[in-house]
């Protein structure tokens, strides 16, 4: 079973990496780029997807709720 987790910095948190990449994109000619935000994507394989446990792990380990939001997707 495949589990996909996306972790993104919260909108309210400064993402200096995203800003630097946005500026580089502008230099590359994509002048109308408004913003870039950089997060993480994790692919997890498990035998059985215990969603409650997975959410707990997303909350406690894979993301830090102070600065990040996560999205959990379980593939059948």
């Amino acid at each position: 079973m495949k589990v996909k987790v996306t972790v993104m910095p919260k909108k309210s948190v400064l993402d200096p990496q995203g800003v630097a990449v946005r500026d580089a994109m502008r230099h590359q000619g994509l002048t109308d780029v408004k913003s870039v935000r950089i997060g993480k994507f994790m692919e997890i394989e498990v035998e059985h997807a215990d969603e409650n446990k997975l959410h707990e792990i997303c909350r406690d380990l894979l993301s830090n709720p102070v600065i990040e939001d996560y999205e959990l997707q379980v593939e059948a």
Partner: protein
Amino acid sequence: MKAAVIRFPGSNCDQDCFHVLKNDFGLDTQYVWHKDASVEQFDIIVLPGGFSYGDYLRCGAIARFSPVMRSVAAEAERGKLVLGICNGFQILCEARLLPGALIRNRSLHFVCEYVRTRLENFETAFTHAELAKSDGNLLTARTGLLLRMPVAHGEGSYTADEQTLRELNRNNQVVLRYADAHGAITDTANPNGSAENIAGIVNRAGNVFGLMPHPERACDPLLGSEDGKLIFQSMIQSAMKQK
């Protein structure tokens, strides 16, 4: 008086902390491996700087789940003094023993330099002491003190939501702010983009202190500063009173 310096895989300021506690302050100091179950027998617990678990995932995110951290949290709950320096500060935030988080420096660069921090609260267990410096001067917090200590980090930008910042200010939990040579809190004096120039905070109870600057690298005039001694001295005096 027994002090523990906790070692995670990737800690690299552990020996500096050990040296200061043992040789400068004469404490019975021991390294504690992160897989050890207990720090109960110690009076002071130090989480040193470094790159625990290679900073994988987020700084401190994996170290936070090391077996020893359960005991650190229990001892902190009981009021024992816990000091987290740099990566130690990051671990304490990840462990929710301190509010907020430390994110990538605004500049994206690793900063490695001496900074000045203004002491905002000189009544905490970690900052109340007076320090007789080797040049004969007395370092005392009551004079609007600036501490000169080095920073060395890539992820030291302190961040927290509005409400947390308000609470930190209201409860005098902000202990250190980055400042210029005159003690002014300015944006140019902020090496990493920390919210409100925050360099160090204590928890609500006042017994857990995290800071990004390295006091253990500023305990000897030969190294350019001994201001960091004020923090260790305060902590040791406070721990003695607890005993």
